[in-house]
């Protein structure tokens, strides 16, 4: 960025040079949103055509509903975050809409279990919260003040399910009259906020103080202690609840944020060693996890044993059946996966019916979303905003990798939800909040005149600001 011309007035200080106006790109966002909605409606119609030879009667209503939600979100962004990255919202709408199409498509195979209407309600709620966050949170740095409240809430939310009965082997749900949600999903945002705030405040101490043991420099326990304690606590709770995916996510999130904050490669090494030890311990001691590792090592063992294909084998069959071009929406048989076909394994339906081409497009959409988060992080000047953006984007990246790698046999399976795509209310709502925060952060990053004078401290330009 070119250095601004030195002036005295506050307003002119960060203004771009005359003749250079940073475009807001809201028009681009709107046209991308129209495309996203049209793609989703097309997919919805195609499912109907493939299954019953007719466009579903409510295709127009579905399109109108999705379009209205997208429009409202767009207007909120236009009003309160005009410089936000124009790709974030359209990608989220497209992913959410495709998820609805896939769930609707799977509903057709399971008449007893209709999940699409519920998912639509949760999506609406998610977009609603997106709008609320964009409208009310004028500056992301506000969150920095609530770091300790965040972490307390996060731990509370995570501990809560212990008092509720386990569902499908994992104690991660809270059921209150008919409704159920996973508090761990919300906890990951709060934890990212806390990590970002704590690391932003203490990163110099973490990076430069402490004593050196052999060639590794360890920071003082006073600085490192609290954050490691929180992190261990949250991972410990999750392991107790057998929510392996989320504990893996928190592990990765912590290591990435710590590395970005301090630049100490040693931390990554320590993190990886700890992760490997923990994974080995859990994998060999915990029967639930042990069976999943076994399944990953040999997905076809149950077939040889005469028990028919297991879930992972069915998932691999589904992906293989998709091949290069896929069977076409509505024409696959991923319902053979059975349990969790709409949630953990929804990617298999995408793979079978859209093929490698469609799946690659899907991965690239996620990659774009993550990249835009990183981009916002790079452009921001305050460490908290940076770390928050990186943390939120990393949550998406890690989650996509862990779940996609799990259902495709790359890594052992851990129950997690594909962001936006999978059935699951808490997950959809959480992801919309993540996107709302990214929109907010990216707006700050791209606004030509960040209102720093209002409250914040300009981050000192340190040696590593290259």
């Amino acid at each position, binding site marked *: 960025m070119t250095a601004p011309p030195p002036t005295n007035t506050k307003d002119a200080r960060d203004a771009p040079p005359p003749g250079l106006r940073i475009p807001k790109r809201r028009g681009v966002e709107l046209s991308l949103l129209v495309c996203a909605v049209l793609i989703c409606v097309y997919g919805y119609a195609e499912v109907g055509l493939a299954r019953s030879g007719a466009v579903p009667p409510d295709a127009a209503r579905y399109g109108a509903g999705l379009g209205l939600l997208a429009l409202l979100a767009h207007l909120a962004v236009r009003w309160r975050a005009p410089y936000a990255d124009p790709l974030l919202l359209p990608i989220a709408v497209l992913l959410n809409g495709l998820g609805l199409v896939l769930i609707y498509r799977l509903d057709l195979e399971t008449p007893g279990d209709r999940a699409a209407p519920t998912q639509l309600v949760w999506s609406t709620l998610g977009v609603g919260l997106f709008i609320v966050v964009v409208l009310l949170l004028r500056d992301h740095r506000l969150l920095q003040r609530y770091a300790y409240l965040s972490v307390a809430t996060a731990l509370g939310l995570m501990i809560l399910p212990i008092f509720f009965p386990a569902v499908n082997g994992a104690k991660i749900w809270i059921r209150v009259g008919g409704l159920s949600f996973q508090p761990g999903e919300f906890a990951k945002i709060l934890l990212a906020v806390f990590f970002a705030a704590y690391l932003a405040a203490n990163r110099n101490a973490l990076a430069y103080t402490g004593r050196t043991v052999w060639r590794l420099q360890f920071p003082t326990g006073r600085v490192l202690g609290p954050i490691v304690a929180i992190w261990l606590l949250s991972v410990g709770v999750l392991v107790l609840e057998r929510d392996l995916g989320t504990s893996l996510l928190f592990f990765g999130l912590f290591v*990435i944020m710590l*590395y*970005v*904050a301090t*630049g100490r490669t040693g931390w990554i090494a320590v993190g990886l060693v700890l992760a490997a030890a923990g994974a080995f311990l859990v994998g060999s001691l915990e029967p639930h996890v042990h069976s999943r590792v076994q399944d990953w090592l040999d997905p*076809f063992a149950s*077939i040889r044993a005469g028990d*028919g*294909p297991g879930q992972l*084998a069915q998932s*691999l*069959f589904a*992906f*293989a*059946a*998709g*091949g*290069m*071009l896929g*069977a076409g929406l509505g024409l696959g*048989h991923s319902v*053979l996966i059975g349990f969790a076909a709409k949630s953990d394994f929804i990617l298999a339906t995408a*793979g079978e019916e859209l*093929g*490698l081409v469609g*799946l*690659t497009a899907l*991965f690239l959409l996620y*990659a774009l979303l*993550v*990249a835009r988060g*990183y981009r916002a*992080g*790079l452009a921001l000047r305050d*460490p908290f905003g*940076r770390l928050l953006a*990186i943390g939120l*984007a*990393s949550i998406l*990246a*890690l989650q*996509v*990798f862990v779940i*996609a*790698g799990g259902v*495709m*046999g*790359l890594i052992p399976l851990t129950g997690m939800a594909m962001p936006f795509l999978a059935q699951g209310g808490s997950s959809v709502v959480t992801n919309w909040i993540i996107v709302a925060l990214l929109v907010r952060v990216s707006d700050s990053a791209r606004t030509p005149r960040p209102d720093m004078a209002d409250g914040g401290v300009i981050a000192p330009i*340190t040696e*590593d*600001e*290259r």
Partner: protein
Amino acid sequence: MIRYIRRAAALCLVLLVALLVNAARVMVFEADAYDENPANRRIAITRWGEPRGEITVDGHPVTGSRDSGQQLRYERTYTQGPLYAPVTGYASQTYGTTLLESAEDSLLSGTDPMLAPLPLWNDVSRGRQPGGDVVTTIRARMQEAAYRGLDGRRGAVAAIEPASGRILALVSSPSYEPGVLSGTGPAVAESWKRLNTSPDQPMLNRAIRQTYPPGSTFKIVTAAAALDAGVVTDVDAPTDTPDPFVLPGTRQVLPNEATGCADASLAYAIQWSCNTVMAGLGVKVGLTDMVTAVEKFGFDDTGLRIPSWVAKSNFDTDMSDDQLALSSIGQFDTAATPLQMAMVAAAVANNGEIAYPHLVDRTTTAGGTTVDTTGRRSYRQAMRPSTANQLQNLMVRAVEEGTGTNAAIPGARVGGKTGTAQHGLGNTGTPYAWFIAWAQATDSAQPAVAVAVVVEDAEASRTDISGGGNAAPIARAVMEEGLRLEAEGRGR
């Protein structure tokens, strides 16, 4: 900090690349192995997701499909299951396919690339066409006549149009209902078990998959060999064979059922079925020439497909003279399918040439557009035309005033040969009654039908068994229908 953000971003890129590479591995490089895994239900689901094409007889389908509402959606049904089971076979979701259902499976199930308007693109898109239809050469009335004639007794009938090789009837008895094997579940498994353990072996296709000692019907083959080799030049001349005949190199005496066989002519031997004359002729022709001759009829051919494979009819190629003598009258190790013996009759009727026998006239798309037609192909020249002409006269004489009078049809020229094949250890088994024949309407240019009938009747008393008595009436009934249909075809 920027440097570390970039490195974290690079890590995310690595994760993305890992996902994409893994996706390509599963969905492209290892896809075939996953697709073909027997535990993968997709192939079965797609295969049974559409109604199968039909197998038709005389323009009417003898098969059907029923929407079961199950995961494997369409089950096969059969309109006259037991009657056509030796033609259609079964198409079972549990036990696979047999016979035409198997041989034409890709067409019936719609995967045959020939069904697609653009086969290459179809290969890429893995599209699927509606199943095509198989038009058989079977004539319903002949099939019914044969089935009625056997009347549940163990046996088989094969009828061919000699000039074209079209198989007009193919019956095996006792038969079974192939529809009971169509679906899945315990009822199907129970039926399968019952059919497989039944002493009657109802699922055995006796017309093409079972070989029997052909007995005296084989004498036509020996006679053709003798005439072609020049061992006999005048069918009415004495053959210089003693009665009784001592098998060469042994002290075993070969008896005759008939009388007057001593030194009898070939004509007399065919007419009254003299064992001694034909055994002697076989030895005179010699092993090499006999083997050459029988192979021209299709014996020892393992490659015959109609399009279902046909069991090999056997004539040993390495024998001593006494064994050769027995083999020449259709005993020892000589064994033939009913279809093979129908081909022998057809060879005589068609001036020595055998047209390739076939069961499928043509295949069509679901819309009725012809995909493929089975053209007439020559199988083999079994004997010289002059030899065939002489044998025709001998077979006609056997029907008019010999052992085969039960097959005579007024207004038609009928040639036949009886056989009563002894078998079992020391010939203790109930003999098989054989009859092979052909018939030509007197006003027609060519024979209408050649037929072979075998009856293995365990219930009948041994002495009552005879080709002329048990098998010839069935052959006559089938030939009568054949002549009638041919006359209708000629507009009479």
